[in-house]
């Protein structure tokens, strides 16, 4: 049993042996409890008779997060395969956040709409910069190699992706406090510049895919999993980052566009 996903000592080969990650479960429970409490508080403040039901997309977001953090994806990504680590990044930073944000009821949104902190962290420019800076820093080889060696470091990276992913997606998904000033065309531009053609994402993906030698020592020096060479693994990680990021942005833009067309039409 471990607290958070970490593959342990360098020379420990991967085995398909289930391991319990108590910290992941605890975190997910706290997330659900926190969201429920927030929605209840929002409903009380708005004078609603009952708390709105949990949004199914929020449940899906929790499931996505659980899959990304728990066995086997969690430990494989935390220490064995850079490509799985990249899959984790896509799930934690880009897929789960918009789904989780759909779980915030309008009444709960209204509770924080006036908060200066919330206004600041969810303003599009700030969110875009913080998200991309976090993506860049957490993927720098010396940072990733240092942090991935411990459960604490691995958890820090996962939570940094989730937190800045929530900031990034907030102005796209949540109505308050700034979405009125952030119309659909701007939201699509935001996704194009901040995700689909983000210089950070493309640059990192290029380095991963075309580097002569593997960038991350942590993955290079791991016992191979299923005969996958570290070179092929890094190439797959680079491809996942660029294609995955662009695909997620495309899907989100499509949703925004068709909803916008409906309201305009």
């Amino acid at each position, binding site marked *: 049993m471990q607290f958070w996903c970490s593959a342990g000592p360098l020379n420990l080969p991967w085995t398909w042996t289930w391991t319990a990650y108590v910290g992941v479960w605890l*975190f997910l429970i706290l997330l659900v409890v926190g969201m429920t409490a927030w929605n209840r508080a929002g409903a009380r403040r708005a004078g609603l008779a009952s708390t709105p039901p949990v949004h199914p997309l929020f449940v899906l977001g929790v499931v996505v997060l659980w899959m990304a953090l728990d066995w086997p994806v969690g430990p494989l990504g935390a220490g064995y395969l850079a490509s799985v680590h990249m899959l984790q990044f896509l799930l934690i930073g880009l897929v789960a956040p918009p789904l989780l944000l759909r779980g915030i009821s309008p009444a709960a949104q209204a509770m924080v709409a006036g908060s200066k902190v919330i206004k600041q962290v969810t303003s599009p420019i700030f969110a875009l910069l913080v998200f991309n800076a976090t993506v860049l820093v957490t993927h720098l080889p010396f940072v990733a190699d240092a942090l991935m060696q411990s459960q604490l470091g691995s958890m820090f990276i996962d939570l940094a992706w989730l937190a800045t992913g929530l900031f990034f997606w907030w102005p796209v998904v949540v109505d308050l406090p700034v979405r009125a000033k952030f119309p659909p065309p701007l939201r699509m531009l935001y996704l194009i510049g901040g995700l689909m053609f983000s210089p950070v994402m493309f640059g990192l993906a290029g380095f991963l895919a075309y580097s*002569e030698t593997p960038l991350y020592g942590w993955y290079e020096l791991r016992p*191979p999993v299923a005969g996958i*060479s570290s070179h092929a693994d890094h190439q797959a990680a680079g491809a996942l980052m660029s294609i995955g990021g662009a695909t997620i942005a495309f899907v989100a833009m499509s949703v925004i566009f068709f909803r916008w067309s409906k309201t305009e039409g």
Partner: protein
Amino acid sequence: MSVLRAVLAPLALGGVLIFAACTPRGSESSDSTTADARTATNDASGFRGVITSPAREKPDFTLTDFNGKAFDFRRATEGKVALLFFGYTHCPDVCPLHVANIAAVMQKLPFEARDAIRFVFVTTDPVRDTPARLKEWLGSFDPSFIGLRGSVDEVNRILYALRMPAIQQSDAPAGSAEYDVGHAAQVLAFGLDGLSRLEYPFGIRQEDWAHDLPKLARGELPAGATPVAPAPGAAASGAAAGGVSSPGAPIRIAAAIVPQPATLTEAALYLVLRNTGAEDTLYAVSSDIAQHAELHETVHPSGGGMDHMSQRNAAIVGAGQPLLLMPGANHVMLMNLSRRPEIGSTIPIRLRFRRAGDVLLPASVVAYGDVERLLAAATASIMK
């Protein structure tokens, strides 16, 4: 703000729990091995490998290779950089990593550097590592890697001579053939002079190999190391055996190959080299096994008709230019051979240049089917 506190409190609680509960596993022993290896890497030496002091002498042993033939390690790697590693094919961690990383880097090296390096893997698990298993496993990384097999006692004697720990075999669980074999985790690098001044422990990365292997292939030594005079004759054959001239020599050989001749009458010699010095002239070629050697050019008549050979007196190689002696073009013919060379053997060749003087090298005897591929690889490497 009270709502913010309500939302953030669970996260803060989680953080406290983490600090209280988790023990970073990265601090465990095997990770520190990597850190130690990195720390020990002596940048001042100009190499990423760890300096061995005193240097290890190349061990004199003969084991059986995966083709069932006797392999005299010292003789077979004379004049080459020999990377010697003791491991086993069922090894779950260190062995496949070292082998995979070296193979990945070797594949990207220029031909002449790659050809100057021999990777020799001695199994520490002769029971499970049958010759076929060794060949298949090493071949999956790089077909040029050599696998050797001997009894545990034989291998332990070699390890003892190298000041390395003996093989330690763990007990297999009852009813299981699975067991681990304890062995040294470092790769020893023997330079062209037969001494190992560097070793590469677990934790060495591909970028480290990519930094050091070309330097080793060029015969460079770690800063401060004293060169050792090679045994008589070793310098010439050594420089040539790897297809690599001694550092600073203007003629750099990328390939010298002889397709196995059908008869003793004649054999072709193909060469790929680059002249890194001033313009020079190759005016003579000779070999111990041929009565004489001729420089030929293939003439393609302008008005049609059959191509034919024409003897040339010399070949001029411009400054910094390659010289390609290839099938269907200029090449060397070795005439009236004293014996028919075997595939896999080498033939001593002497190239005489007006400026660079004599260049001695061994030409590899290969099957006709391999000529085109080998020359293409050598040409590509020398054109880089």
